[in-house]
């Protein structure tokens, strides 16, 4: 059974990737999960300067999901380049850096810095973080802003560029097409969906940042729709995720149009689950009547039953 896939020129031993922000900088997980076995590792999004993030509490469990309002706490691109990327050398697994800025120019500078430092295989451009006051999702809901960011990133680096979009828009395929026209090599779908939870006893939000991003199985149907529509609209390679917990989920994402999938929230319950998924994937692909992971991508037929 062939698990290897290639997404925008990046070769992965299998299509199962660790999602940005849920696997830290890789180092934290490395004693728990054999990172050389995962398809790829997407690092926590970094900004030009280190960020402290939002007030706590930063997470809240919701039905079949969770809200987070980390607020892009990160070590900053300098520490990423100086400390993290070198530490990940020799991992044997492709590493994606993820960047987030509050201006078009900051994305360009982040891309240039990472490109210059080397050591990563691809770049994820996060234009969809719901937990920051400036930038983030404000860019990702706007085709013009998305386009400008992607262009400036592409001008400043030769790495394959994946644009991470939000599904909290009326028509995600419009944004995806804008990203494609601006030169995106691939898409990562979907980021968390903005949401709110309230403590009735105190009449205050459950999160220090008030609004948080919803992730987990709750959002899976929204993610699948986004992936299907963007695949149909652009044909770009897609890293798909949102609530993936088992191989059945992985198959759904591949069929909807993803070339690889990302696991995030499910890591919290059991970081080792991601390796189980990889182990069980060949059998699941076979039962779905395919001979490789790649063969499933985008094979949804629009008639039911």
């Amino acid at each position, binding site marked *: 059974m062939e698990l290897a896939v290639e997404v925008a020129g990046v070769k992965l031993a299998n299509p199962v990737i660790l999602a940005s*922000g*849920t*696997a*830290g*900088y890789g180092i*934290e*997980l490395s*004693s*728990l999960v054999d990172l050389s076995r995962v398809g790829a590792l997407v690092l*926590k999004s970094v900004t030009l300067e280190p960020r*402290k*993030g939002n*007030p*706590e*509490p*930063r*997470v*809240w*469990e919701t*039905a*079949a*999901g*969770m809200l*987070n309002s*980390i607020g892009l*706490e990160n070590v900053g691109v300098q520490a990423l380049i100086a400390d993290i990327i070198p530490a990940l050398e020799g991992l044997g697994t492709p590493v994606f850096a993820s960047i987030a800025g509050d201006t078009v120019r900051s994305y360009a500078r982040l891309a240039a810095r990472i490109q210059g430092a080397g050591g990563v295989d691809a770049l994820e451009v996060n234009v969809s973080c719901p937990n920051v006051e400036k930038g983030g999702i404000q860019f990702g809901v706007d085709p013009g802003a998305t386009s400008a960011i992607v262009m400036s990133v592409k001008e400043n680096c030769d790495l394959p560029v994946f644009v991470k979009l939000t599904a909290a828009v009326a028509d995600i395929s419009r944004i995806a097409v804008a990203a494609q026209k601006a030169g995106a090599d691939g898409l990562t779908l979907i980021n968390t969906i903005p949401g709110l939870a309230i403590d009735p006893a105190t009449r205050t939000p459950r999160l220090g940042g008030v609004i948080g991003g919803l992730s*987990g*199985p709750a959002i899976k149907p929204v993610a699948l729709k986004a992936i299907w529509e963007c695949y149909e609209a652009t044909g770009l390679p897609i890293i798909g995720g949102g609530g993936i*917990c088992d191989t059945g989920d992985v198959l759904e994402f591949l069929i909807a149009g993803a070339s690889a999938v990302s696991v995030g*929230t*499910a*890591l*919290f*319950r*059991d*970081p*080792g689950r991601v390796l189980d998924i990889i182990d069980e994937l060949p059998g699941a692909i076979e039962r779905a009547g395919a001979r490789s992971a790649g063969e499933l991508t985008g094979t949804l037929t629009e008639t039911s039953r």
Partner: protein
Amino acid sequence: MADIASPTRGVTCAATLERREEASPGVFILEFRLDGGPPVAQPVPGQFYQFNCGGGREHMLPRPLSVHGVTRWDDEVAVLKFLVESVGWGTERLCSLEDGDEVGLLGPLGRGFSLAEDGKALLVAGGMGIAPLFFLASEMDRGDKEYDLLAGFRSAGQFYRPLSGLKGGVDVYTDDGSLGNRGMVSGGADGRLEGVVYNAVYTCGPQAMMTVVAGISEEAGVPCQVSLASRMGCGIGACRSCVIEGRGAENLCVCSDGPVFESYKVAWTGAGDIE
């Protein structure tokens, strides 16, 4: 942070409930045997485990619980003790498990208490803060260390009976005076630190209480270690869910920099509590 017990790397494993005992109304002692025998690292007081309490896909976040004791840890068998108050879905589920039921565990996680070489220590526990501090006291008993333990409860009904078996001096405080001294356990700590000479304070409990204990310890010039809590995601330092503010306005990661911190590192306005 060299003087705080350095973090051991946790592992994921299944565990089977071996014994459940109601310690006080709604509070249970749960003993779990780790399936597959003991992993490399034996937990130290102050460390915790992340519990996957089941519940299918409805409940995606694990629940953190401090280790309350090591019942057995040898070449074949590892049995750990937890003291759990039923306050919501996850803890309720744990507290109603039956012998033989399985849960998923990840641990031991975080940095535990680090013991001073010698001298006498003061342990100050409020409410469920007794969970890690009773473990600490038991370990000090094993190592023949000197300590006094102040334990605060809402009222006599909440008293944790195994306290009576400890070797150290135990002083009880209840909010309503129904057992031991009436009043806050932090008040007791105040009196103690004025008189008796302790060379370390270890505390765990509601944030307000820890804030007071940290303050009076610092005033008395006695090093104080606090075991904090906050809402967690990963439990291993990866997701930055659990941070609280340090005194230098930097972020402290409760799950991997803590949960035990030297009190002077913490900015006492934003710190989490366990109760």
